[in-house]
């Protein structure tokens, strides 16, 4: 693998995480439990899709085959998406949606913090911009953990069950491969071992305040970063890509 191929995939992974989670969150549009939450989730989705736009646009430039951000977002096949499996999990209910968001926000925050010092100046610029938004996401989802965990008996049970269920998807965030290593060696990528420790610490702190039990690290689901996805992924793409597949090159 050449340096540029690795860089392309590295940026695609970050971009796809934002894109797919943004798409997932936007499913809540018009279905939020209260109006303010409906607006909050869709605004978070908007931030994520905005970040995905910057990242996929840049990935297209690195690839140099003339693909723009829209072509990358809407015209790839499932195995070409390199997001982690966590972000493609279904919304299920509000507890699952927020547990997923909480685990991801803490990772995203730490990752962008590290990317500020990336040797790749464009990636550092995108990180600088995105970090301001992700900081807000992280605070919001953390506050929700406390509200639900330390709330009623039912809210406590449901958020704990959601956390226990999706925990096995958190390990992928920190499982590196040769692409991660190449990017780390060239000073572009982040040190996953380092942010893993910080992530466990900050996640544990919030869960403790929320009177929730931090699940034990056991078997972890892997593969999304290499293009192997859960059975839920195809449905997301079917909906997301429908317009471009049915009406190629259609524009607003």
């Amino acid at each position: 693998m050449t340096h540029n191929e690795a860089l392309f995939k590295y940026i695609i992974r970050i971009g796809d995480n934002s894109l797919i989670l943004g798409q997932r969150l936007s499913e809540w549009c018009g279905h939020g439990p209260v109006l303010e939450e409906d607006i909050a989730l869709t605004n978070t989705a908007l931030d994520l899709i905005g970040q995905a736009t910057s990242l996929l646009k840049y990935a297209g430039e690195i690839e140099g085959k003339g693909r723009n951000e829209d072509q990358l977002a809407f015209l790839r096949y499932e195995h070409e998406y390199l997001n982690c499996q966590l972000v493609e999990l279904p919304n299920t209910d509000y507890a699952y949606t927020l547990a997923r968001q909480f685990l991801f926000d803490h990772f995203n925050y730490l990752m962008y913090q590290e990317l500020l010092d990336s040797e790749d100046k464009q990636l550092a610029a995108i990180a600088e911009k995105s970090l301001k938004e992700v900081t807000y996401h992280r605070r919001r989802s953390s506050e929700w953990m406390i509200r639900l965990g330390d709330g009623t008996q039912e809210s406590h049970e449901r958020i704990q069950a959601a956390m226990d269920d999706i925990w096995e998807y958190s390990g992928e965030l920190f499982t590196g491969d040769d692409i991660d290593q190449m990017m780390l060696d060239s000073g572009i990528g982040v040190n996953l071992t380092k942010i893993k420790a910080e992530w466990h610490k900050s996640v544990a702190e919030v869960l403790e305040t929320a009177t929730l039990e931090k699940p034990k690290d056991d078997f972890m689901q892997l593969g999304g970063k290499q293009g192997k996805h859960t059975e839920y992924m195809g449905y997301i793409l079917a909906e997301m890509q429908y317009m471009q597949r049915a009406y190629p090159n259609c524009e607003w």
Partner: protein
Amino acid sequence: MVNQTHTEQELWELLEQVKDPEVPVLSVVDLGIVRKIERIDAAWEVTITPTYSGCPAMRTIEKEIEALLREHHIPLVGIKTSLSPAWTTDWISEKGRTNLRAYGIAPPENEVDKSVLFAAPLVVPCPKCNSKNTKMVSEFGSPACKAHYQCNDCFEPFDYFKCLR
């Protein structure tokens, strides 16, 4: 083509006419998203920066800048987007802040260090009655750049332009 030369200062003044479509009392200059106006040979290049990554107003703003310059027969090389340094609400001008308040939107307050996960709640004075007895209703208002508040004294619900740093 009309043979006309403009100064950079004239262009800055001209761009005051382009308003943020979400907040029509703020010009793009007051909002601080026009970063640079540069002459390249016989034409101009305008550099803008987004407020939020996904802000849907950015494309409208670009189109409006293009249209305005075309109307004034000012040749444009293009509109460039820069991400770094990232926009902060500190770049909103004093005039912009005054206009926001008059329009019923509370301008950004100086917030404490954002790296602290749970900071003390922020006091946002009501733009109508100036009372400091207000409460946050939602972390997000209509667009991503605002939060929703309500005044406990005059009961006015209002938008707060969030501090971003």
